[in-house]
């Protein structure tokens, strides 16, 4: 860049300042949430479990389930938009049949969406590249105003199609400190134990 030396220094400084003040992604910052907000607690525990499985064990996340849900929601939004536009173009009495159709199909997305609480589907690739991949699924539940968090892991062997699952239930107070910061070391221990229980069962059987 052919700038006068003074100008270049100023640009660098501005660039650095902007970057410092406003770094968007904060993956490395410890997770701090409002400890009384049940939804935030569950979300942060789910995310941390996901992180353990993906980063520590190197499994690959399979987005089919999530994409399916996003697709169904998008389709129902489209129904709503179609109803809106149709009603605008053909004022009310004529648009009745189209409106009725859209209104009835809209709640269907509630029925179709599975309520299984699964938040991660990951694939464990075989290192040798010979056997088909094993599938891991994580699901969790945390009742409203309750402190008992249940994490369930399930393992489906790619070759034998065998299905195993195990879970643990602990109070969320075990994983969060006074300020609402997630103590990753503690949580990672439990998730690792869960994971190892399933892998060790594989070896003994």
């Amino acid at each position, binding site marked *: 860049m052919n700038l006068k030396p003074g100008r270049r220094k100023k640009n660098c400084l501005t660039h650095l300042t902007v970057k410092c003040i406003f770094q968007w992604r904060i993956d490395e910052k410890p997770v701090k949430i409002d400890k009384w907000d049940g939804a*935030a607690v569950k979300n942060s525990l789910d995310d941390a479990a996901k992180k353990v499985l993906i980063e520590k064990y190197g499994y690959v996340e399979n987005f089919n389930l999530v994409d399916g849900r996003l697709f169904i929601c*998008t389709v129902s939004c489209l129904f*709503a938009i179609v109803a809106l536009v149709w009603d605008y173009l053909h004022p009310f*009495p004529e648009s*009745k049949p189209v409106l009725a159709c859209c209104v009835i199909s*809209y709640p269907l997305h509630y029925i179709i969406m599975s309520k299984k609480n699964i938040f991660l589907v990951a694939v464990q690739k075989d290192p040798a590249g010979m056997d088909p991949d094993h599938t891991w699924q994580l699901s969790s539940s945390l009742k409203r105003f309750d402190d008992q968090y249940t994490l369930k892991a399930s393992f489906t062997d790619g070759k034998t199609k065998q299905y195993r699952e195990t879970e643990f239930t602990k109070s969320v107070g075990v994983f969060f400190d006074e300020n609402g910061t997630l103590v990753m070391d503690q949580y990672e221990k439990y998730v690792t134990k869960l994971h190892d229980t399933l892998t060790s069962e594989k070896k003994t059987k």
Partner: protein
Amino acid sequence: MLSLDFLDDVRRMNKRQLYYQVLNFGMIVSSALMIWKGLMVVTGSESPIVVVLSGSMEPAFHRGDLLFLTNHVEEPIRVGEIVVFKIEGRDIPIVHRVLKIHEKENGDIKFLTKGDNNSVDDRGLYKRGQHWLEKKDVVGRARGFVPYIGIVTILMNDYPKFKYIVLCMLGLFVLLQRE
């Protein structure tokens, strides 16, 4: 250093989760829209819920009351019923009582309305040269009401800035909070 803690949740999201947040917002708007359109289909009226804007129907209805309307074709309009109608060329619905009806054999009607609290009938409000209202002007017939709640709508119309601020705050709240 700026510490925008409330943005932390959003900053940790990947592309799919961000799309889900936007979708969540869209779903809430769509649900509200579908409920409104559903009411339109069920009641047969293009505006199933209206707010009384003036005191011309006191003591029956006061300014700010919320009215529930139906507009089924099979039910004939009779004298004494409270109807909500729109005058051709004007957007604002008017809530008054039916005074006189002329009915043909095939069911076509012409009717005259008057507000309970007004001293004259509505001919002064109708379009120039129009002396009677017809079925097509009717938005619906009042079937039930809830007092006072409509004041919020009147406030939002009188102070549009207030309306936009409230809507923006709600929108931001939904977009930045995870379920």
